[in-house]
């Protein structure tokens, strides 16, 4: 029996989808934004693994079917982008300015935090690419002497936080233009934020998708320079 939970090929996928489905049900029941299926689902998975004393790598291997879809899903973002090509073409300069501002603020603010807290170098490097997609962020972190697992965790937490607060932030800062909202959400909270941007509207979703790609590449280019400014 126990082997089913260590060597089996399905239980990890089953646990992942089951936990996420439970989170979705709870969100429907309570109607609260913080009852986010990704947040709750991840907590349920951690709880289950802890209770059953299953090592994380065993789960990770068995849930490969789910995480393996990240690559085709990211590539699929080309479709909403193509459908909103007009909005993109008309606002190229504005979009690029926004993404550059976002990437500079993200890296600059993490540098300030590292100085303020005298953060350990490896931890500080791990935080630098925190706003971009895990595919880019984890590689940047590993390349520059960070801790990729910490970077992945911080990126996902950033995404969930951005997803939950996107509407509030846009309202507080009076960001009403759909293109600007998409750029803001995608630059700050990558693919997880984009899930929320898609709910706000097709233009928001497409601009958020675009920002994942551009902000990611820009951050990968800026981080090697930023590392030199660390304490």
């Amino acid at each position: 029996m126990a082997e089913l939970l260590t060597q089996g090929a399905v239980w990890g996928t089953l646990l992942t989808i089951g936990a996420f489905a439970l989170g979705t049900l709870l969100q429907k029941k309570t109607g609260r934004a913080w009852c986010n299926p990704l947040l709750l689902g991840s907590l349920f998975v951690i709880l289950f693994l802890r209770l059953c004393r299953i090592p994380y790598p065993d789960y990770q291997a068995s849930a490969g079917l789910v995480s393996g879809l990240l690559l085709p899903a990211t590539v699929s973002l080309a479709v909403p982008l193509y459908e909103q090509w007009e909005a993109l073409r008309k606002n190229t300069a504005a979009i690029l300015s926004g993404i550059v501002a976002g990437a500079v603020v993200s890296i600059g603010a993490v540098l300030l935090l590292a100085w303020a807290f005298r953060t350990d170098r490896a931890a500080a490097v791990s935080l630098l690419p925190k706003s971009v997609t895990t595919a880019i962020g984890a590689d940047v972190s590993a390349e520059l002497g960070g801790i990729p697992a910490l970077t992945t965790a911080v990126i996902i937490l950033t995404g969930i936080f951005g997803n939950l607060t996107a509407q509030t932030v846009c309202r507080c800062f009076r960001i009403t233009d759909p293109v600007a909202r998409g750029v803001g959400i995608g630059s700050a909270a990558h693919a997880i934020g984009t899930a929320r941007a898609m709910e706000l509207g097709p233009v928001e979703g497409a601009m958020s998708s675009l920002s994942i790609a551009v902000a990611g590449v820009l951050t990968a280019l800026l981080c090697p320079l930023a590392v030199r400014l660390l304490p």
Partner: protein
Amino acid sequence: MSYIFQFLRILVFCFLGEILHALLPLPIPASIYGLALLLAALKAGAVKLEQVKDAAGFLIAVFPLLFVPGAAGIMELGPLLAEVWLPVVLAVALVTVLVMAAAGRVTQAVIRRKEARHG
């Protein structure tokens, strides 16, 4: 049946992305190459929208689910997070708000300036 062909097309672009990632010495992941190539193919008309739309829509709809296995990896970081929790919390909460506000406001300002100029 059409789903099979649609997934096949998307996976071909994933694979092309992986090939470029392996060949080119740039800090760009396979997923971004794949995205750019599929967008170019759609623009060039080599791939029609209907030939990928349903499968892509499905994958985008389940996007948040796909992050659960990675997010659960946070359980491995207990002792490390205990050491740096304050900068981590500030980076996640405060910096995310600042970035969203900066990127959104700058984009909006440039759009409005252009609109004002063109009347």
